[in-house]
């Protein structure tokens, strides 16, 4: 396919940019209006998982590292935040910061070990290290083992806004979610993000261009872990507890599924995937059929039939090409 001349694309691209801005604006308006129609706790759950999946996608979709241990950062931060807020009496925003810092520290350790190998090997390392963290959480006294940390107070944001009000909490979660998404968007569109993508595409070439690839990988790992921690800390405040479920390897698998289903390497794909998987989980939680049966089936289907995910397929379709201003061939 011949490359289309840049000049002829410009008006179209501008239109596409407008279309994209419009869509994002509509989505944000939709999210602001959403608590009128949906149960706020469910929406907050979706937003937390969506942020988690986006953070995960920063690593898988833009750096090409598949981590099968992201639950350690998500669930770990949930524990740290819950402990900081409940035992130390910190305010919610500081509690979340503690969670983020803890997750980033964990990401530094796990990432440092994981990037010593590449591809499938590093995936197994993340999985094993996250499992080690799971056993640590099972036995460490501050996590209260099987019971988890319960009755975490939501507190007052900046000492002013009462987060025990569902709507206040919802808008706080929404604000943090949008902030996280904006951070990811900034990261992937920065020169740093471009280098990450070049590592994903061809690691040896990135090395030959003089980039210290391992440092970039580690930086991406820590950022992804910190953002996953942001989602985890938020979730601990929303549900007011932190349990072993969030650090288990099943959770790591779930976030992979969300990203895969929505579209690896797309900004909004993980959000869509998270919304779908969470809805499915809620729906099947009350039925006889184990949720894993459904999620596992979707997993196999995604891998076999549509590896680009929902949003990825949409981008690849005619509509998507028109929206992004690419000329049909």
């Amino acid at each position, binding site marked *: 396919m011949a490359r289309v001349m840049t000049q002829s694309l410009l008006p179209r691209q501008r239109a596409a940019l407008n279309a994209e801005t419009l869509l994002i604006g509509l989505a944000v308006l939709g999210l602001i209006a959403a608590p009128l129609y949906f149960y706020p706790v469910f929406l907050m759950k979706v937003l937390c998982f969506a942020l988690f999946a986006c953070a995960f996608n920063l690593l898988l979709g833009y750096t090409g590292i598949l981590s099968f241990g992201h639950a350690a950062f998500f669930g770990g931060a949930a524990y740290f935040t819950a402990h900081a807020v409940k035992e130390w009496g910190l305010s919610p925003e500081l509690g979340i910061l503690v969670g983020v810092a803890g997750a980033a520290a964990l990401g530094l350790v796990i990432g440092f070990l994981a990037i010593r*190998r590449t591809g499938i090997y590093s995936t197994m390392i993340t999985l094993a290290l996250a499992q080690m963290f799971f056993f640590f959480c099972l036995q460490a006294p501050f996590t209260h083992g099987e019971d988890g940390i319960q009755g975490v107070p939501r507190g007052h944001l900046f000492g002013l806004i009462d987060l025990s009000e569902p709507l206040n909490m919802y808008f706080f979660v929404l604000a943090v979610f949008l902030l996280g998404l904006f951070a990811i968007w900034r990261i992937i569109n920065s020169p740093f993000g471009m280098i990450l993508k070049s590592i994903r595409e061809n690691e040896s070439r990135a090395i030959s261009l003089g980039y210290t690839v391992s440092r970039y990988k580690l930086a991406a790992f820590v950022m992804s872990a910190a953002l996953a921690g942001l989602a985890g800390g938020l979730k601990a405040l929303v549900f007011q507890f932190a349990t072993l479920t969030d650090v288990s390897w099943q959770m790591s698998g779930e976030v992979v599924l969300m990203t895969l289903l929505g579209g690896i390497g797309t900004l909004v794909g993980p959000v869509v995937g998270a919304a779908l998987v969470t809805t499915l989980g809620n729906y099947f939680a009350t039925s006889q059929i184990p949720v*894993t049966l459904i999620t596992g089936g979707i997993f196999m289907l995604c891998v076999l039939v549509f590896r680009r995910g929902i949003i990825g397929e949409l981008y690849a379709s005619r509509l998507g090409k028109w929206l992004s201003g690419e000329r049909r061939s």
Partner: protein
Amino acid sequence: MIFDIPIQAFLGQLLIGLINGSFYAMLSLGLAIIFGLLRVINFAHGAQYMMGAFAGYLLLATFGIGYWPALILAPLIVGLASAVIERLMLSRLYNLDHLYGLLFTFGLALVIEGTFRYYYGSSGQPYAVPSALAGGYNLGFMFLPKYRGWVVLASLLVCLGTWLLIEKTKLGSYLRAATENPTLVRAFGINVPLLLTFTYGLGAGLAGLAGILAAPVYQVSPLMGSNLIIVVFAVVVVGGMGSILGAVITGYLLGLLEGLTKVFYPEASNIVIFVVMAIVLLIRPAGLMGKEA
């Protein structure tokens, strides 16, 4: 007495470690074989181990087929079922990134476990020790249940047999050749896709065999394989991916180490294998017996 610990407790834990190690060795052997040829990390290995145990349980419960025939039948059933899945689905993923194989088998594991949970619930089903292996020997310093001795012996035989199959037979030489260069082996007129299917079936069958061996020791439950598999992954990473000998030896050693940790510092027994993995990665990223990739 060693460090104030009674010798019975010490040897007892060591025996438990050896038995766990036997299962680690058998499972990591299957994983290493599959990985060596297919380059697929078989996440469904734990589910296939569970299927082996369930096959034995169901053969007994529905057809009245006892332990000894089940020892042959269960691995065959698991191997055949897995070979069908490989042929129909997994084989479509070989020319993609290896990560897709991992993701596919992960989904497969969830589906298998979900199905068994749907029919049998999460609680365990008991499976009696065969009468020939009931009871035990009094070794003077400790009591050795016969069945546990048999598990250790059987796993050694299985590992040795598999090693001989791969290193000393014609089929094994095809396997090793196809690992090195599948295209060339195909050019010599050997049906490589069939070989891949066979290998996957063999690896899964080994997991099934481990499962039926485990049925009388642990309870038969749908989730019996899901936590084990991650420990086995760590074993494979320590041994060096794709190194069959490495997988087997590391399996036994780490099982023993886990047993020892239970004696001296029980709190760390769950994580000691992962700690070893982290240390090995720092010193020798390719694993103890792996080649530098």
